[in-house]
C-alpha cells in the first residue's frame, strides 16, 4: 500500500510536469491553431535556464527563478517575432512545419551552449521526506503537484475571464472577425507564446530538481503529445487530466507489469483515444448547425 501511494505521488508529479508543458501547447493551439512541436524543447530549455540562472550565476533561488522565467519569455517572444510572425496568413501547416524545425534548432543551441553531459542541480524545493502513514514521500515531488495545479488554474482563469484570454479564443474561432473587433493578432500571439514559455519553464524548473539537467529530458517532452491528445488539444483542464493519466499509467505499469512497457503505453492510450474520441476528452467539437 505504501508503495502504491509512493507510485501515485511520483506519477502525479511527473504527470503535472507533463501537464505544464502540455498547457503551453494548448495555449498556442487555442490562439493560433498551430500545434507547437517545439513545446517539449521549451521544457528542456526551462531545465537548462534554471540551471544557468541558479547554479551557474549563483543567484538565490527566488531571483534565479525569476530570471529563468524572464529568459524563457524572451526566447519565446523572439521566436514568435522572428519565426512565426512572418508566416501569419500563410497556411497553418507551414507554421506547424516551422515549429518542427524550431525544435531541432533549440536542441542544437542548448547542446552547443551546455554540452552533451548531464549536469547536477540541487532543487530549491526542500529535499527532505514526508511521512504519510507508512509511506515516505520525497518532499519535492509532493510539492510540485500543488505548484503545477496553481499555475494551471491560473491559465484556466486567464482564458475564461481576461480580455486577452477571450481575444485568444476569438482569434482561434475566426481570425478575420477578431481583426474586425480591433483585436491585434501579433500582440495576442506574442502573449500566447510568452505564456507557453512560462508554463513550460515552470515545468522545466521542477523537472530540473526532480530528474536533473540533461539532454535526455527532451524525450520527456515527447510525452506532451499523448497528454494533449488524451485531454483535447484546446483544453487546459484536459491537459491536467491527460497529464495525470499518462503520468500514473507510466509508473503503475513500470512497477507492476514490467519495465519498458511503460514507455509504450502512453502511445497505445493515444491511439485508443483517437479511435474513440477524435477531439480528446475535452476537446472542442466542430459545431454544425442544422
Amino acid at each position, binding site marked *: 500500500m505504501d508503495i502504491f501511494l509512493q507510485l501515485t505521488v511520483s506519477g502525479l508529479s511527473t504527470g503535472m510536469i507533463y501537464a505544464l508543458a502540455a498547457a503551453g501547447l494548448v495555449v498556442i493551439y487555442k490562439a493560433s491553431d498551430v500545434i507547437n512541436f517545439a513545446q517539449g524543447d521549451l521544457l528542456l530549455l526551462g531545465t537548462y535556464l534554471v540551471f544557468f540562472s541558479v547554479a551557474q550565476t549563483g543567484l538565490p533561488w527566488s531571483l534565479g527563478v525569476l530570471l529563468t522565467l524572464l529568459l524563457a519569455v524572451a526566447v519565446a517572444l523572439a521566436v514568435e517575432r522572428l519565426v512565426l510572425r512572418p508566416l501569419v496568413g500563410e497556411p497553418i501547416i507551414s507554421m506547424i512545419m516551422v515549429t518542427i524545425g524550431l525544435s531541432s534548432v533549440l536542441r542544437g543551441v542548448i547542446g552547443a551552449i551546455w554540452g552533451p553531459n548531464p549536469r547536477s542541480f540541487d532543487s530549491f524545493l526542500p529535499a527532505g521526506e514526508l511521512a504519510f502513514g507508512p509511506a515516505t514521500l520525497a518532499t519535492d515531488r509532493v510539492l510540485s503537484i500543488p505548484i503545477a495545479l496553481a499555475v494551471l488554474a491560473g491559465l484556466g482563469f486567464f482564458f475564461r475571464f481576461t*480580455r486577452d484570454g477571450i481575444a485568444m479564443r*476569438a482569434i482561434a474561432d475566426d481570425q478575420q472577425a*477578431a481583426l474586425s473587433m*480591433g483585436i*491585434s493578432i501579433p500582440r495576442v500571439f506574442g502573449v500566447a507564446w510568452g505564456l507557453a514559455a512560462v508554463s513550460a519553464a515552470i515545468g522545466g524548473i521542477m523537472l530540473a530538481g526532480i530528474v536533473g539537467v540533461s539532454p535526455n529530458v527532451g524525450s520527456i517532452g515527447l510525452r506532451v503529445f499523448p497528454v494533449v491528445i488524451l485531454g483535447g488539444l484546446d483544453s487546459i483542464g484536459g491537459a491536467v487530466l491527460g497529464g495525470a493519466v499518462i503520468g500514473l499509467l507510466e509508473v503503475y505499469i513500470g512497477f507492476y507489469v514490467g519495465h519498458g512497457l511503460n514507455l509504450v503505453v502512453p502511445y497505445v492510450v493515444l491511439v485508443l483515444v483517437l479511435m474513440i474520441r477524435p477531439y480528446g476528452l475535452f476537446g472542442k467539437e466542430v459545431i454544425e448547425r442544422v
Partner: protein
Amino acid sequence: MTEGVRRGADVGSAAPPLLGLNNVEVLYDDVILVLRGLSLEVKEGQIAALLGSNGAGKTTTLKAISGLLHVEDGEVRDGTIVFDGEEIQGMDAHRIVEKGIFQVLEGRRVFEHLTVFENLLAGAHTRGERRGLEAETERVYDYFPALAARRGQLAGYLSGGEQQMLALGRALMASPRMMLLDEPSLGLAPMLVESIFTTLRRINREEGVTILLVEQNARIALSVADAGAIMERGRVVLEGDAGELAANEDVKEFYLGLGDGGRRSYRDVKHYRRRKRWLS
C-alpha cells in the same frame, strides 16, 4: 416609414461629412482593380445605404474603410479615406477600431465556441478590461431581447437571426461612432429582416451611431436609410437622398424589381440592362 422619420437624424448639409472617400482605388494581389476611383460621403448621424449588384465592390469598399483589406492581399492604391478629419487609409485594423469605426462582416461570423456573453466582451476588446462592461451588455440585451435568454450559451448553437443580432450586439459593445454593416439581411426570414432593420434605426437614433449599410435588399435598405449610393463596377454611379433614390425609375427597375412596363422576358431585360448601364 414616413418621410419625417427618415430625415430625423439629418444634421444639415453644411457640416463636413464624418466619413469621406475620395477617388479611392483598391487593388487585389497587385493586379485586380476592384475600386476605380470611388468617392462617397457619409454625414454624421445618418444611415447611408450602399447598393449595387454582386461584384460591384461594396464589400471591398467597407473593408477598405475598416482596414481589413490587408489580410486579403488588397490595398488602397490611390485616393484618401478621411474619418473625422483624419486620413485613415492603410492604418492597421485595430487602430481604426480604436478611432471608432466598427465593421460587422457579412455572414454573421460569431465566435462559435464562445458564449453569447463572451462574444459581446470580445466586441468591446478595444475598451479595456471587463470592469463595467457587464452593465454594457444589458444595453445590448435591451435592443435584442432574444439574446438575453441565451447569454450563457455557445454562439455556435444560436439560430441565424440570433447570430445576426449577436454580430450587431458585438458592434454596439465597442460604442463606435460609425458602424459598417455588410448585408445584415443575408439569409434571414423577411419578418426578422424587418425587425432587425427597425432596431438598427433605433440604434442609429438613440446611440447617435452613424451607419454605412451595404445591402442586396435595396427596398428595406432604402426604407430605413437617410441617404443612398449606387455602385457599379467599382464606382458610385448615382447618389442622393434615400427617398429620391427609391423614386428613381432606373433604381426601381434594377434594384427594387418595380419596372413599370409589366413583365418582360429575361432576354429583353438583359438587353435593356446593357443599354442602360450608367457607365460603360
